[in-house]
């Protein structure tokens, strides 16, 4: 069965969902709003080439996803120009030992227990995730929300494996510290 587009329903049916999807994946709300708007405008512009093979919903998500990837690649280009800054000195001394201010502390829960199965916990985790810089957030989200393999992520972002591991290392250090300060203390 071939699907049909109903552009007059798009905003009502999909705008909040696409906005939530995009907001979870990019750093600023403004960028997310721009991407959602661009998604609908692009979809509108190419509606005549829609063949009805994918559902309207997944067609719109694919367009949105491509916009997000384009946005990531712009960040990758500027990061490559600026170079990766050294982040490790926030956490480690010159010998590579933990700094006293950054040493991990024991958390009240170290395994999955229902103590953290609350909305409040996930809100804090999400806030910490939102504080990550753009590309750290990108690799983290692609890995843990989209469940992609690191090789696929490197291909999509056009980065090297070592770029990926540096971004992930930094993301984990920062998230861990943020959760410790804002939830487990």
């Amino acid at each position: 069965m071939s699907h049909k587009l109903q552009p007059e329903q798009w905003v009502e049916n999909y705008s909040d969902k696409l906005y939530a999807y995009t907001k979870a994946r990019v750093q600023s709300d403004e960028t997310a709003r721009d991407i959602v708007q661009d998604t609908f405008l692009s979809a509108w512009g190419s509606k005549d080439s829609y063949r009805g093979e994918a559902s309207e919903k997944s067609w719109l998500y694919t367009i949105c996803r491509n916009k997000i990837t384009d946005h990531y690649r712009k960040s990758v280009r500027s990061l490559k120009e600026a170079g990766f800054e050294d982040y490790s000195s926030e956490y480690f001394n010159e010998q590579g030992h933990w700094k006293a201010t950054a040493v991990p502390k024991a958390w009240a829960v170290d395994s999955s227990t229902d103590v953290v199965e609350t909305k409040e916990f996930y809100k804090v985790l999400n806030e910490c995730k939102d504080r990550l810089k753009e590309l750290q957030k990108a690799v983290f989200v692609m890995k843990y929300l989209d469940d992609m393999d690191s090789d696929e992520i490197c291909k999509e972002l056009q980065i090297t494996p070592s770029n990926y591991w540096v971004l992930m290392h930094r993301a984990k250090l920062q998230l861990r510290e943020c959760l410790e300060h804002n939830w487990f203390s």
Partner: protein
Amino acid sequence: MSLMVSCKEATYLASQMEEGKLPFIKKIKLKIHLAGCKFCKMFAMQSAFIASHSAQTEAIMAESIVLPDTDKQRINSALRP
């Protein structure tokens, strides 16, 4: 070849192990380090904890996220023949 790695390197390798991408020799190095370093061991456990709880944030946050009305109106008026 030294089997000793620093905490900085161990925490870097921990993500690779978590994702199943750590070559054998480096895995040995990391395990030796983790056996003797409670801080990095805690880091690795907490990092795995974050990894296993992150996917749920999306659905929980999505419940309360709404695109501003001004954006909706602007888009709607652009989507007219």
